[in-house]
């Protein structure tokens, strides 16, 4: 189908306070034309408020929201022409599937024949062709999800908003839907803003992720950069597993246990500094270590078997506990150290991330 050009979204100085709490605090954010951007944050971070302002359901205290060149911040929701998928789908229970999907078309006075065609097409897009006459309460959770999606895209909006749309599904279905939504986005190329608190979901689906906390954007980056090069300790803690080891900084270089650390970037600014350690980036090395790696010595506390992987928990000299994850192959398992063994852990300089030690 001939689709309208997707629109970029420009957000400036957007602020919304509930009493003394800032749900959004002077947010600036650009969503690029056609990209899949995820707002990721813990509950209460302001990500849902931001989405509600984009949809027009919440009114900010001040700020600007532009869809393309048009300022929309004062536009009522029914004039914004954005598709939205609600957390609980909000399918109308008094209408069948086809009527739900046809609803936005009817409001736009699309002629009957074209309406029917587009409804069927939208249902086929979400792999529900032929389900038009089903009642909403006859559908499974995944099917409802797809109907909600079909209803949100059938009128070819130039922006699509999704509010934790997969949170009600079980894990397997959720993972399948993540792939499907991603594929759908690639086909439709529609500018999409997606809200979730599930970091794996965000990492799987997004072109870019905006990590939000206390009404501010902590980092806006591609998933891989968010994971591998978090901008600050909050992002590092919120995304993935990590341990923070205090390091000493002298003359622009960091030292751990008296040994200098080779890092991808110089330690940040003045003040105290920590080393971020992710379990899967630590390698168990022999006592000799390996050249070119940063080495950390410790004693094995125990080995935890986790099915697809195993975690070796190691206590360092200063008492900090770190984990090193290995893929649970038979060979690796056989080579796993016994509790109490002295081990050397290796961390490649590219994975050596130094962060300012500000509490998140």
């Amino acid at each position, binding site marked *: 189908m001939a689709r309208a050009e997707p629109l970029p979204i420009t957000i400036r100085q957007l602020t919304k306070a509930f009493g003394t709490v800032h749900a959004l605090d002077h947010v600036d954010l650009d969503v690029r034309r056609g990209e899949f951007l995820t707002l990721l944050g813990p509950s209460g971070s302001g990500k849902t408020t931001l989405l509600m302002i984009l949809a027009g359901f919440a009114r900010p205290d001040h700020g600007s929201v532009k869809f393309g060149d048009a300022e929309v911040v004062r536009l009522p929701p029914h004039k914004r022409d954005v598709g939205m998928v609600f957390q609980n789908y909000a399918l109308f*229970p008094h209408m069948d599937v086809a009527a739900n999907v046809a609803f936005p078309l009817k409001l736009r006075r699309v002629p009957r024949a074209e309406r029917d065609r587009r409804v069927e097409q939208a249902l086929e897009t979400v792999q529900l062709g032929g389900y038009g006459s089903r009642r909403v309460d006859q559908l499974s959770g995944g099917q409802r999800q797809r109907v909600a999606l079909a209803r949100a895209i059938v009128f070819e909006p130039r922006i699509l908003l999704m509010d934790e749309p997969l949170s009600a599904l079980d894990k397997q279905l959720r993972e399948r839907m993540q792939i499907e939504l991603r594929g759908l986005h690639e086909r439709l190329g529609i500018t999409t803003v997606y809200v979730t608190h599930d970091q794996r979901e965000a990492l799987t689906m997004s072109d870019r992720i905006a990590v939000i906390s206390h009404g501010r954007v902590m980092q806006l980056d591609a998933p891989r950069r968010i994971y591998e090069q978090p901008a600050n300790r909050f992002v590092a803690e919120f995304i993935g597993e990590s341990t923070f080891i205090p390091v000493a900084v002298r003359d622009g270089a960091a030292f751990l246990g008296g040994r200098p650390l080779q890092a991808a970037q110089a330690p940040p600014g003045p003040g105290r500094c920590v080393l971020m350690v992710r379990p899967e980036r630590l390698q168990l090395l022999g006592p000799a270590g390996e050249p070119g790696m940063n080495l950390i010595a410790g004693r094995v506390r125990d080995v935890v078997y986790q099915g697809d992987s195993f975690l070796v928990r190691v206590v360092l000299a200063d008492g900090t506990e770190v984990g090193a994850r290995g893929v649970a192959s038979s060979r690796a398992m056989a080579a796993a150290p016994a509790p109490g063994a002295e081990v050397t852990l290796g961390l490649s300089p590219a994975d050596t991330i130094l962060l300012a030690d500000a509490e998140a």
Partner: protein
Amino acid sequence: MAGTGAEMHGDDASRPNAAGLRRDAARERWALLGLASPAFVLVLVAMAIPVAWLFWLSFLADDGSLSLEHYRRLVEQPSYARIFRATFEVSLVTTAICALLGFPLAYVLSQLPVRAANLCMIAVMLPLWTSLLVRTYAWLVLLQRQGLVNKWAIELGLWQEPLKLVHNMTGTLIGMVHIMLPFMVLPVYGSMRAIDRDYLKAAANLGAGPVRAFWLVFVPLSMPGLAAGALIVFILCLGFYVTPAVLGGGTIILVANRIANDIELFFSWGAASALGVVLLVLTLAFLWLASRMLRLDQVLGGGHGR
């Protein structure tokens, strides 16, 4: 005993405790039944037996013999048919007015914050704590020829001659609507409160302005409450006695009034019983029709989806 044999057989090594567990399940079922028995007895004593007795009496002539004379009278005397018609008409009109007034009222309440809505709800319910008779006579005092309404309206120049507001259909309807309104507002309000706000957000998002979102989404979703309220009001109206007697001026004669009249007039209970039976049958027929229509509503997707 066959049962014991089967049980012993059931309790072999491959099915330990089978018989005991089955017994526990049976005991639980009986206990549940036992808990329900007061309700059964109540329904039997308070409903089934009196209704059966009513049926029996309606077929007895004054001399105690079986006869259809009471039913024949209902058919032969044209006043009875007119009274049944009037009863259903008054009930339908009252229900319609209650719906027209109650729906917007319930809507406003449902849009208020819960605390304020609860306060207003108490105000709506308050009349129910006052005697029906008192409320009815209050309307008589307000609406009569020299009553407050006429007096003030004439003083304000709204009309010159006293209007006939009571002792007729107008007065009866005013009184009945006032008394019945809470029974309409309560279920409608309940079903409106239960409507997820996301439905309205979704409607707005899909392009419906407030007015169209109201008519296309909110109203259909509150229909179950409206149907329930209408049914309650209608059924209650069918048995109304006091209000038409006091505010109807003697010409608004409903079935209940006629029953009271016939009890005084005839020696046997049969005459009044037959009236009761016919009203009961007509009401059941109406309920059956209504339930079919409501089921139809469900087929169309009533009931709030999960």
